[in-house]
């Protein structure tokens, strides 16, 4: 390019400064272009950032997900289980599983020593060996309490980690273990109410409500203590007991022995986990006799004035029915019950007949499993055909096997003016009224209760007679069937009672499986074994239940017990 201002300047010749200016100009142009390019790129990048920031800020509604929220969403919380007064029977506590990250461990021996100092059940040598051998994460101990966690935390070990978990606990130990059941390591119900009402317990847990039972913890404890005492005293292989409010069908206490520790169900023997009171069925023997009398009176087959000859055994082909304590001559219906005559009860049953007998057994709920929310219900064993010998034996409680709960429910029907109420162990709501079934008339029920009171004041149940609570009941001593034959040396001794007889409200049953001799005569019948246990139990629970004692006359049983005491002393 040639500088030629106005056509008069440099022309044709090259201005030496012009090249320099041109180069400078071109360089400036070049730099400015780069600056513009960089500015454009930066502006573009900022625009993109601004756009993305605006989008995230204005249009993204997703909240910041925190670990707390994540853990909250995955929680499966089981509801507390409480007794009728709100006392905790099963709860949930947060525990911590202690892990160690092996690659972070500097000195396994030192770590094992320090941890075993605060967690003595973690063996120092064993832990050290595991820490040296393992790779990745090592589970040191499950189920640390918050206090234990704090103790480990205070050691200041950077290689340990805590994983939070929820654990079902039964703070009362063995109390009501069979009814409550237990859960597995994943927190799923595996027995008792925990299994039967698993979904309901989980649903209530979401609303922080508790599952309220009808059990009274104090009654439950008294019942379990009596079962434990009786089995120890008479060396029984098992026992079960029920206390029921006859006016509502609510179970106030229900227990089986032997028992187990639901906090560690893995340590229990299968035998201990059997809910004998609900799941097992037994031939109850003479505790059935009040029903035979009740059905005959209610159906008008006989009256209390009728008398029956019980001096000779009843024979059916090759089988015969005897009395343990035979009475010569005729006995009234009341005496048959008071003296617990098998022959008399069998003859009354034959008078009643199979159709009426079955109808009333059905009405008392003895032909079906007694319903209870805990599940695993004992299905009664019934005769295949109702021949005369069957009718006769069922009349005194043989040839038919029912659960202790079913028998208590039937006694509760007598106590409730002849109206049977389906038992429950979960507190009812107004929307869930009890199902009722008329069994016998109120007059019949009252009459039979009166006879049962005489059994306790004058008959085989005298050792159950305790001051003030007007116990009415019936003993039952049934021989067990071993290899298809009744074994005279192995008994099921039971005592079923209602109290107070003047205004019956509560039904109680205690059953001992194979009690050994209760006195020097070698007698292990219910009169010696189960009856006194029921008497003691009623003395303990009546004040808890608010039953006012009637102290007009000393109990007849007490006189007998005093006589026995004197004789022993003499």
């Amino acid at each position, binding site marked *: 390019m040639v500088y030629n201002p106005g056509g008069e300047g440099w022309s044709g010749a090259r201005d030496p400064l012009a090249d320099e200016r041109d180069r400078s100009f071109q360089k400036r142009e070049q730099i400015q272009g780069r600056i513009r390019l960089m500015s454009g790129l930066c502006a573009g990048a900022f625009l993109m950032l601004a756009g993305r920031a605006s989008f995230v800020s*204005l249009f993204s509604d997703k909240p*910041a997900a925190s670990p707390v*929220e994540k853990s909250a969403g995955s929680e499966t919380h089981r509801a507390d289980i409480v007794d009728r007064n709100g*006392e905790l029977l099963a709860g949930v*506590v947060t525990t911590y599983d202690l892990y160690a990250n092996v690659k972070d461990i500097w000195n396994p021996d030192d770590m094992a020593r320090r941890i075993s100092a605060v967690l003595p059940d973690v063996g120092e040598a064993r832990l050290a060996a595991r820490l040296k051998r393992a790779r990745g994460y090592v589970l040191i101990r499950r189920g640390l309490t918050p206090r234990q966690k704090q103790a480990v935390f205070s050691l200041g070990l950077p290689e340990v980690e805590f994983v939070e978990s929820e654990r079902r606990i039964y703070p009362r130990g063995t109390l009501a273990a069979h009814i409550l059941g237990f859960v597995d390591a994943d927190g799923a119900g595996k027995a008792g109410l925990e299994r039967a009402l698993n979904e309901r317990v989980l649903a209530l847990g979401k609303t922080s409500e508790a599952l309220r039972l009808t059990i009274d913890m104090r009654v439950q404890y008294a019942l379990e203590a009596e079962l434990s005492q009786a089995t120890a005293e008479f060396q029984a292989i098992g026992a079960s007991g029920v206390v029921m409010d006859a006016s509502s069908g609510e179970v106030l206490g229900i227990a089986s022995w032997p028992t187990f520790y639901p906090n560690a169900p893995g340590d229990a023997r299968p035998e201990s986990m059997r809910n004998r009171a609900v799941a097992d069925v037994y031939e109850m023997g003479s505790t059935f006799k009040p029903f035979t009398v009740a059905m005959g009176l209610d159906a008008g087959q006989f009256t209390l004035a009728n008398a029956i000859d019980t001096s000779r055994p009843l024979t059916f082909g090759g089988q015969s029915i005897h009395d343990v304590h035979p009475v010569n001559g005729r006995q009234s219906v009341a005496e048959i019950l008071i003296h617990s005559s098998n022959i008399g009860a069998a003859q009354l049953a034959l008078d009643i007949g199979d159709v009426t007998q079955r109808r009333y057994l059905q009405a008392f709920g003895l032909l079906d499993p007694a319903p209870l929310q805990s599940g695993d219900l004992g299905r009664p064993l019934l005769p295949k055909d109702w021949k005369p010998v069957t009718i006769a034996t069922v009349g005194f409680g043989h040839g038919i096997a029912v659960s202790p709960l079913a028998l208590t429910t039937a006694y509760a029907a007598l106590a409730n003016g002849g109206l049977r109420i389906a038992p429950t162990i979960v507190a009812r709501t107004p929307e869930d009224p009890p199902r009722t079934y008329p069994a016998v008339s109120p007059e019949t029920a009252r009459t039979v209760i009166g006879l049962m009171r005489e059994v306790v004041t004058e008959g085989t149940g005298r050792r159950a007679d305790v001051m*003030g609570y007007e116990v009415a009941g019936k003993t039952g001593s049934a021989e067990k069937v071993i290899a298809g034959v009744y074994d005279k040396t192995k008994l099921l001794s039971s005592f079923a009672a209602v109290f107070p007889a003047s205004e019956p409200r509560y039904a109680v049953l205690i059953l001992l499986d194979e009690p050994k001799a209760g006195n020097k005569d070698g007698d292990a019948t219910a009169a010696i074994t189960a009856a006194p246990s029921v008497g003691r139990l009623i003395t303990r629970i009546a004040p808890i239940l608010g039953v006012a004692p009637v102290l007009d006359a000393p109990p007849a049983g007490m006189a007998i017990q005093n006589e026995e005491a004197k004789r022993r002393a003499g």
Partner: protein
Amino acid sequence: MKKSAARLDEDEDGAPPARRPWRGLWVSIGAIIVVVLAVSLYRAKTEAQETRKHITQLEKELRETRRAISAREAEIAFLERPERLREIARARLNLSPVQTGQLKSIDELQESPERKPDAAASGAVEN
């Protein structure tokens, strides 16, 4: 159409555009409004996020408090085991279960000629 086409032609030809005195003002006002709205929305969202965090924190505290209560309740239930209370009542308070003869109705108490508070108070105590 013709006029505007002519004006466009003029613009393309390099003639100075017609003056629009209010245009810059409107653009500025619009920009300010957009900025104010954007800032307000941003603040609202930030506050909502803060509130959400606060709620999460409160829920966490609630959960922890509930856990602590559950643990205490379980501890109380464990300490109030009937067999434990029975042993303590016997060993430290010298108490035993109520006997039927110790129970009186209100009427019987009123009929009593002499009330002996000391005797009544020690009724449930084993000597």
